[in-house]
């Protein structure tokens, strides 16, 4: 590994992790102001311009609070849970490609941290680890509410992982690869010149099922039963305070970012340029020295902007849905997962297999 490799790897990690983490205060702000707007309120607007520094103040408060550990908890696992909560979605983010490649000093830099051949499975593996903080935090806190939240959370996440996996499998059949870069490249075409061949247009039912299960996986409303603040206080993180709670809070939003990145990569063309961006690329490219490297860099920059816009849109949808739908009851949640989404995704998978067998090959 040369020094260049090391530096570019480090820079990519800094960009992805930095973006994921620094988007959280903005997301929290947006969650609060967005909810206010949706409910005809004004929302936090006192701290900083448009209240943007509100979450900075909140984080500062969380940092300065006494780091209190209740006496009845299992200390090791109690402290381990928030760490895993944050590590799992950040780990999953490292296989998301955020651009084709850039040319730096004549060398090709692939804009993806870990160029793993089976990137999707890897991503799923890390997403699967998100169950552990819920279980561990709930169990280690020795509290009825936290255990209830942990039980709900783990069963919910395990159940919806099946529907999610099935809908991903149907996309694997279509793309014929585990490699996320190849998947995105597959979606780079267009029909009739303007309709992009995004996965969501090819496999809409799969996209819908995936989208619904993603909500359950990230514990967002309408599936936020592990937290269920109306019934079980705070769910699995009832006993957490100060920055340990902050870590769970951070993890929830990083998981949202990860989920949005995943759905935009799998179903919405990933870093492919948004319709109309091609013109923009050639326009900006006219101002460069016109070398292929510079043009490629301009393209990579717009690809990065494209995926950022897509991720931003899905983050907006996360907030939007949260402030529209009420929470499901637990049996309704399980019914939806096992009796509707699981059979539907299975049938969808079979249909996709038959279609691709008869029509594509």
């Amino acid at each position, binding site marked *: 590994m040369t020094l260049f490799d090391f530096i570019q790897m480090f820079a990519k990690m800094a960009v992805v992790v930095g973006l994921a983490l620094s988007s959280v205060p903005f997301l929290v702000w947006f969650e609060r102001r967005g909810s206010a707007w949706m409910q005809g309120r004004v929302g936090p607007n006192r701290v900083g311009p448009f209240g943007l520094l509100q979450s900075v103040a909140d984080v500062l408060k969380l940092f300065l609070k006494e780091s209190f550990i209740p006496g009845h908890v299992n200390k090791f696992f109690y402290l381990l849970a928030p760490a895993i909560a944050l590590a799992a979605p950040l780990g999953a983010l490292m296989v998301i490609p955020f651009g084709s490649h850039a040319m730096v000093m004549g060398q090709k830099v692939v804009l993806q941290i870990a160029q793993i*051949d*089976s990137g999707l499975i*890897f991503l799923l593996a890390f997403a699967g680890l998100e169950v*552990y903080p819920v279980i561990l935090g709930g*169990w280690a806190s020795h509290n009825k509410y936290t255990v209830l939240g*942990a*039980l709900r959370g783990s*069963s919910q996440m395990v159940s919806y992982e099946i529907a999610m996996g099935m809908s991903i499998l149907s996309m694997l059949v279509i793309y014929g690869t585990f490699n996320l870069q190849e998947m995105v490249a597959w979606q780079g075409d267009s029909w009739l010149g303007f309709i992009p061949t995004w996965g969501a247009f090819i496999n809409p039912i799969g996209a819908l099922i995936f989208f619904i299960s993603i909500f359950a996986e990230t514990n967002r409303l309408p599936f936020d039963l592990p937290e269920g603040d109306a019934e079980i206080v705070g769910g699995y993180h009832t006993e957490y305070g100060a920055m340990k709670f902050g870590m769970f809070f951070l993890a929830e939003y990083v998981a949202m970012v990860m989920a949005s990145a995943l759905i935009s990569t799998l179903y919405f063309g990933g870093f492919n340029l948004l319709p109309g961006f091609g013109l923009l690329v050639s326009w900006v490219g006219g101002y460069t020295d016109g070398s292929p490297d510079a043009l490629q860099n301009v393209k990579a920059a717009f690809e990065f902007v494209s995926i950022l816009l897509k991720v931003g849109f899905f983050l907006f949808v996360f907030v939007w849905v949260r402030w529209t739908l009420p929470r499901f009851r637990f049996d309704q949640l399980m019914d939806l997962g096992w009796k509707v989404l699981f059979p539907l995704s299975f049938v969808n998978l079979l249909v996709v297999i038959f279609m691709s067998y008869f029509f594509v090959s």
Partner: protein
Amino acid sequence: MDNLNLAFLFLGGVAAFLSIAMLLAKNPIAAALSLLGIMLCTAGLYGMMQEHFIAAIQLVVYAGAVMVLFIFSIMLLNLKKEERDFKFTTPSFMATYTAGIVIFIGIIFQLLVHYDLFKSTMIPGPFNTAEVANLGGNTKVLAHALFSQYYLSFEVISLALLVAIIGAVVLAKRKFD
């Protein structure tokens, strides 16, 4: 000693430490989580061998599914009593302990004699990293091997799993009827 060997020693050492911790843990959840740690270390070892697919599958299946069910069932069952009554000095524990050590030493001895671990170098299999990358990545190679060369064994194993599932359903049904 290069970086890979260091990583191997680290992962292997953590795995070995966690195995002992799992055996000695009084708390069932702690034991299950040690097992989870071993799974993660194994996945890391696979990843180190450039077998990303196997590593990811290890994580998905063992860490993501099997261990969750383990911990889930441990949490649902009340294992306080076992935790309290468990003693390291009972005769049965001592007997198992001794037998385990004897078997372990036997295996190590056999390995040393059979493979001559310290003298000759290991014979690598038909695939190495460069060749796998040449053939289109390890996922492809694995799929080809699994669904052509080892097709029969693959199907037999899935049949065995099916039998296990049906057996579990039958047992559960008899209990609840």
